[in-house]
């Protein structure tokens, strides 16, 4: 392995043929980092027939692209070994991946294969006099860890850590097509098919008012309260993971890191404590109101308005108020 450059690489994720918003977040931040380090920002684009995607990656100085049939659907082995091959000549100072299903697989495997160190769950990156300082989130958000990186490092970055707008570009970047490693043809890991969730009723990402329920709802029948309120406001009911895991609502209603990311005009969180995985899915809602019996619930750090109280008292009273106002 040669001496590391000061380049910053960003691994591009493109589910469904569109560059993921998260990748733009990384490109935006990567731009600043590359500048501070005095290197280039390189977008690493692996896939099949993805040349057109390079058009939106103009924030980068360069797009390193590998086009191969076996890279069409993501598998950790194929993508990690391809990135390793790309890094054979010059390993970048930083490789930014999303802390996503694909990103964490790629990063971990790559880190051991090259080998190159890695840091996970990063939410802040600064350059201080040529040194890179990262802040990672641990233990469900209860702890933050500030680290000084020693050399080349792979980073997995939390969604929403940086603004996506900074990474958008209307022009493309120069594309350098690289050959896929020879072994790729014989790669034994295959994606057989994509499983979509059963066709569901409501697409909560399109609804502008969401009533979200968490563990505090206690019983399945109490969902009725949320449904009533949603009905009054012409909105829909969604939930955090624990409620979905119980089977009280279908997967399509799950908001959070492994569910949907929503940006409604109103997000009314009932009995949701505010675990980081959930916040990831709704923190950018326009108006967040949280109702919880626990004054210390983390949701109150993200909400615009908070009510410390029993939802079974507050919501009926709210509905009465809303009915009055609507009638008036």
């Amino acid at each position, binding site marked *: 392995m040669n001496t590391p450059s000061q380049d910053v690489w960003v691994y591009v994720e493109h*589910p469904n043929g569109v560059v993921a918003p998260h990748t733009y977040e990384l490109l935006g931040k990567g731009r600043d980092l590359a500048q501070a380090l005095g290197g280039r920002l390189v977008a690493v684009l692996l896939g099949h027939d993805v040349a057109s995607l390079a058009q939106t990656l103009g924030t980068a100085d360069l797009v390193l692209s590998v086009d191969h049939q076996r890279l069409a659907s*993501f598998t*950790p*082995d194929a993508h990690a070994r391809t990135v390793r091959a790309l890094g054979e000549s010059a390993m970048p100072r930083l490789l930014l991946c999303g802390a*996503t*299903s*694909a990103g*964490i*697989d790629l990063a*971990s*495997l790559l880190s*051991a*294969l090259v080998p190159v*160190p890695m*840091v*996970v*769950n990063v939410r802040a990156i600064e350059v201080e006099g040529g040194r890179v300082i*990262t802040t*990672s989130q*641990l*233990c*469900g958000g*209860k*702890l*933050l*860890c500030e*680290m*000084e*990186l*020693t050399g080349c*490092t792979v980073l997995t970055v939390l969604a929403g850590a940086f603004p996506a707008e900074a990474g958008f570009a209307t022009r493309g970047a120069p594309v350098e097509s690289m050959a896929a490693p020879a072994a790729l043809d014989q790669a*034994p*890991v295959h*994606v*057989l*098919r*994509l*499983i979509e969730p059963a066709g569901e009723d409501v697409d909560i990402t399109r609804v502008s*008012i969401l009533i979200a329920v968490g563990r505090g709802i206690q019983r399945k029948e109490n969902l009725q309260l949320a449904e009533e309120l949603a009905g009054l*406001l012409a909105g829909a009911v969604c939930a955090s993971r624990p409620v979905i895991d119980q089977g009280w609502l279908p997967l*399509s209603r*799950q908001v959070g890191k*492994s*569910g949907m990311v929503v940006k409604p*005009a109103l997000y009314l969180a009932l009995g949701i404590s505010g675990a980081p995985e959930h916040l990831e899915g709704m923190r950018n809602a326009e*108006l967040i109101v949280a109702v919880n019996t626990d004054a210390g619930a*983390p949701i109150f*750090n993200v*909400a*615009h*308005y*908070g*009510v410390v*109280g029993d939802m079974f008292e*507050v919501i009926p*009273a*709210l509905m009465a*108020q*809303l009915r009055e*106002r609507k009638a008036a």
Partner: protein
Amino acid sequence: MKIAVLLTMVPDLVEELEIDPSGTALDTQWLRYVLSESDDHALEQALLLKDRHSASVTALALDYGDAEQALFTALAKGADAAIKIAPVPPGGPNRRGAAALFAEVLRRQPADLILTGVQATNDLDGHLPGLLGGLLDLRYVGVTRSVEASADGGLVVQKEYPGGVAAEISLPTPAVIGVISAPQPPRYVPVARIREVTKTRMVGVEAAIAVDPQPAAVIRRLYKPEPAGHATMLTGPPEQMAQELAAILEGRGLLR
């Protein structure tokens, strides 16, 4: 099929986490350890495969933080064997160190399938299964919600993506899989059976030397986050708060 399940002990978040005087590590006075949640799912996934395909399941853990208890519980749930790996520093090594220790033992006792949780709450320098895949040069897929044995002796796994989408992936054994959830919740094992197992079964010990890799990064400080902002809290009896809230919603034009 020989299955190895790797168990990692992580700080129990039920307790208050305190930072020690150095400011770079957790205070261990009230620190308790619990088995990482996704490892519990990995064990359940292994036991499901054992139920269906009469595989043998061996649970392995690094010997720190009540790992023995977790290993006995695994035996009580149905694992065939349990091994603890020693010596290990009291709070456990970092993930790379852990991967190196597990890899050493797994080279001596190869398995067809290595299952472990895809991530743990205190991961900092990597995620265990991916690192292991690279170290052992084995096929690897992570974030799985189901693992099945296929007719040809390989595996078919479902890799989870957001929004309930999943990719069905086939790969040959031997392989490393990073589990996020098992198809059914981890099974319950009665306390009496755990106690019985603790008295009647043995946990094997494997020696491994902790390789101290070059630290990828130096911890400057470990701290508890200050909330960036806080909500405007409404006060008063429920009716009053409801009234205020209704006024806010109306003011924002959200009543239709």
